[in-house]
């Protein structure tokens, strides 16, 4: 479990430094696969069938369909990269390290006794995803941040309970998938109307 927490954090930190869209998506695939393995891992103990189904869904949706959609969008965007993020890669990494410390503090204060490292890792994965969403201008990277947040929440649930009921997980997956599809379409429209997917141009009304 420790290995998976470290993998989650490592990928999260990598994404804070990446400006290439395709690379960010590839890292995201690795992270999602890690989450799926964590899901199987927790299922091994409890012998509940639905954790395996949830793991399979994670692989299919988060490591398959969503990255595929994002790759499609990224391929149409051609050479767009994150040029001027609001925080530079070094600053973002530093902020992410701070968030990690915050997550540890929060877990120690609010939820003592539970699996500390896994919980703090999941929480900081969530926070770093939020950080990416806030500090990146590229729409695709913001979507990547969203999926990272989702992965963090999923692991949080996994480390606190022994897996949520299947129907709730199905709902969450469906939510995320629809969100990503909508965001993908919006990103593409953004490209068509503004010639860029830099979200800071969305300040003026266009009639």
């Amino acid at each position: 479990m420790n290995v998976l927490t470290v993998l989650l954090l490592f990928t999260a930190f990598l994404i804070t430094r990446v400006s290439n869209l395709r690379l960010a998506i590839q890292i995201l695939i690795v992270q999602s696969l890690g989450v799926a393995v964590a899901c199987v891992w927790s299922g091994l103990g409890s012998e509940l069938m639905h954790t395996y189904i949830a793991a399979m869904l994670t692989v299919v949706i988060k490591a398959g369909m969503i990255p595929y959609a994002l790759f499609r969008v990224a391929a149409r965007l051609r050479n767009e990269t994150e040029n001027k993020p609001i925080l530079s890669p070094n600053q973002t990494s530093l902020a992410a390290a701070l968030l990690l410390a915050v997550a540890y503090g929060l877990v120690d204060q609010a939820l003592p006794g539970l699996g500390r490292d896994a919980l703090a890792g999941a929480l900081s994965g969530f926070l770093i995803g939020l950080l990416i969403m806030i500090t990146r201008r590229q729409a695709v990277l913001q979507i990547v941040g969203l999926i990272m947040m989702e992965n963090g929440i999923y692991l949080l649930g996994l480390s606190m309970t022994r897996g949520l009921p299947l129907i709730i997980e199905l709902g969450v997956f469906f939510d995320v998938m629809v969100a990503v599809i909508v965001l993908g379409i919006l990103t593409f429209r953004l490209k068509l109307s503004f010639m860029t997917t830099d979200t800071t141009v969305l300040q003026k009304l266009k009639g």
Partner: protein
Amino acid sequence: MALEMLVQAVGITLLAPLLQGFIQWCKARLQNRRGPSPLQPYRNLFKLLAKDMVVAGTASWISFVTPFVCFGAAIAVAALLPVVSSGWGVSDLFLIVYLFGLSRFLLALAGLDSGNSFAGMGSSREMYLAVLVEPAFLLAIVATAGAVGTTELGRMVQHATAHSFTLPYVLAAGAFFIVVIAECGRIPVDNPDTHLELTMFQEATLIEYSGRQLALLLWSVYVRQLAMVVLFVELFFPWHWFDLIPSLFVWGMLKIFLVGFLLALTETSTAKMRLFRLPNFLAASGLLALLALVAR
């Protein structure tokens, strides 16, 4: 205890130029050159020790004192490392880090003192590097010290021997290897073989030195390098981990030269980094150390 320390200090000091020669020889071989013999650094040192000094006109007592202090600090580090025995309880991690810091500080001062503009540039860069390397160095080792609950190196090495190749140690090894590269002035960070102005850190601060003083300074650089490699081997590939060869000494030497080969390999396979890319490189070290802290 005192005798053991003395033997160890003398041993490391005498072996240090061999490691430097070995790395250069490996590098030459990897680049399809024949290269100088691994004993070449000894010959250079002997030659320099026999030569007279030419002292810069502006040089003050700082320039005079620096070689002795650097050499002394290097020998002190060599004596303090827990190699022969890990029991004497005086080798604190912070002491080692700041003995390195002391010699770096004086070298930078001496560079400014010599009045040479290249040396001044070298000092400024050396300090810039120090700001980046020191936290990475401390973080990389503290990541492993956290599990032990002490910064005393002997105990840390014992703990490392018991827990070698667990996840925190593997991550911290990655972090520390980057620090070793930076601290030894090896290629992605600094080029130890040239006096070209674009690549100068440490070499530039030595540029006004000659003769015996240069010999002492170079020797202290070699000792520092060997000390870093020994520390790396002790913490992350501990001595008693594997009793393949009965004599632990031979096995230890083998590991030290293996790390030397690894340094030569990274040096031939990577290009020198731009100065302002260095924070990113050392941030990678910091990141690995942070993950090692989490993984514990």
